[in-house]
């Protein structure tokens, strides 16, 4: 097996199973097979899925900087899968809120979406993520040409919305949202730094051909 085949037939399925594990654990906890979800299982389910959505968006955004710093180009082969898992966990978080927490009461849902800014933020993030997930197929990507990249740049906005949503949701303790904010700042900061560096280089090259 060459490297590409190893990635496709061994590494990818392995990473896939690993990424699915947090969801499986929520399910087995819900049925008390593994630990349990505590006294307020609905809150626990929402928290767990929401937290994993944030973790996955951080992991996805870490791929490119990590590849550049290490030179491990094969990392990019996992980027789409990680992005889709971000969508999966965000969707589960959203569905847990919609079905278990709000019990599909249309009035409650509309009130939440329009009057609670942190829910508006989270909902916007899920809608944008859905657009990215739908356009993640190779065929569509080819057909969309350069528009694809512009659309998928929305991932940066989604990450900010996600952390902001969490920040506004907590009652008092901002420790966890702060950790995500610091990581996200680093991940976006390094991109900005590289872009500025390139622009300076290009400018210098223009001046001294």
């Amino acid at each position, binding site marked *: 097996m060459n490297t590409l085949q190893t990635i496709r037939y061994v590494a990818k399925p392995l990473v896939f199973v690993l990424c699915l594990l947090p969801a499986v654990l929520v399910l087995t906890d819900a049925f008390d097979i593994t630990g349990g979800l505590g006294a*307020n299982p609905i809150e626990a389910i929402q928290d767990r899925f929401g937290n994993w959505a944030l973790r996955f968006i951080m992991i996805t955004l870490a791929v490119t900087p990590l590849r550049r710093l290490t030179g491990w180009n094969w990392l990019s082969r996992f980027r789409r899968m990680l992005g889709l898992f971000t969508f999966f966990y965000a969707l589960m978080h959203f569905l847990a809120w919609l079905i278990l927490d709000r019990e599909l009461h249309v009035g409650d849902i509309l009130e*939440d979406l329009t009057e609670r800014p942190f829910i508006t933020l989270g909902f916007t993030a899920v809608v944008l993520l859905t657009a990215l997930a739908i356009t993640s197929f190779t065929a569509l990507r080819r057909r969309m040409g350069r528009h694809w990249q512009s659309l998928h740049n929305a991932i940066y906005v989604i990450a900010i919305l996600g952390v902001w949503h969490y920040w506004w949701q907590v009652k008092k303790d901002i420790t966890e949202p702060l950790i995500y904010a610091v990581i996200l700042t680093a991940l976006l900061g390094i991109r900005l730094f590289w872009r500025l560096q390139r622009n300076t280089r290009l400018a210098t090259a223009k001046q001294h051909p």
Partner: protein
Amino acid sequence: MLIRKPADIRPSEITSEANYLNRRDFMRAGAIAGGSLLAAPGLSAVIPDGRYARLADVAKGPYSTDETPNSFEDISTYNNFYEFGLGKSDPAARAENFRTRPWTIEVTGHAEKTGSYDFDAFMKPFDLEERIYRMRCVEAWSMVIPWVGVSLAEVIKYFQPTSKAQYVAFETLNDPEQMPGLRGRSLDWPYREGLTIAEASNPLPILAVGIYGKVIPNQNGAPIRLVVPWKYGFKGIKSIVKIHFSETRPKTSWNMAAPGEYGFYANVNPTVDHPRWSQARERRIGTGIFAERQATLMFNGYGEQVAHLYKDLDLRRNY
């Protein structure tokens, strides 16, 4: 050979079950009959020093709901007590070795009987009652808890507040060595709460020392905590070390932290939403994943006892 032995106790000497259950009334009657000559033994609240020790002489108090109480496990593993951490399971995990003896309660301010009271001496003048109350958290979840405690109104009366006492303020222990949450600045410590003197003199509030007939678990506010069933749970200050009779409205912790979100009154009110979530419905803990939220009741269903306290108050502004 069968030898018939007379029974040691004649049937007439055996206390009937009804009389046994009414023994406190019986003794009270005796105490009244005997006037001040008789110090009625067994009428004072004695709180054993031992985790989950059973409380003796607990009478069934008034105002109890007939709703099914939450399990002891739910009550003792899911609650907020920021002094032990910000997670709902932190108090249960970290309050294990919390020392509730010796425990001193300081009574200060506009009252006749101020001073420092050892916990046992503090409790002695009062009667233990079971009160099964609904508990509505400001976070929109609720429980039913079978408290054991003493009537706050009785406690207030005992300390003889003067006419200047308009409010009663409470403070939680502030011991960073025992309470790891105090090292963080999540709130301005010590935890503070307060009631108007009229609220505190209402027959509903209790100072709780037990749950399910046993000494209250450390994580729920041992050895003594406030329970005000028509207000959001955060008014129920835990592990009380100070009671102050004040002329002016005391500062209260959550109000200090976020005045736009948590008011001084904090009466349960389904028509006034928290800025970030609806208070119209609540999730009853222990009902499972697919149970529906239930409607939140005005004053948490205790309007009959307390609505008159607020008849001249705009509850939308005084949330």
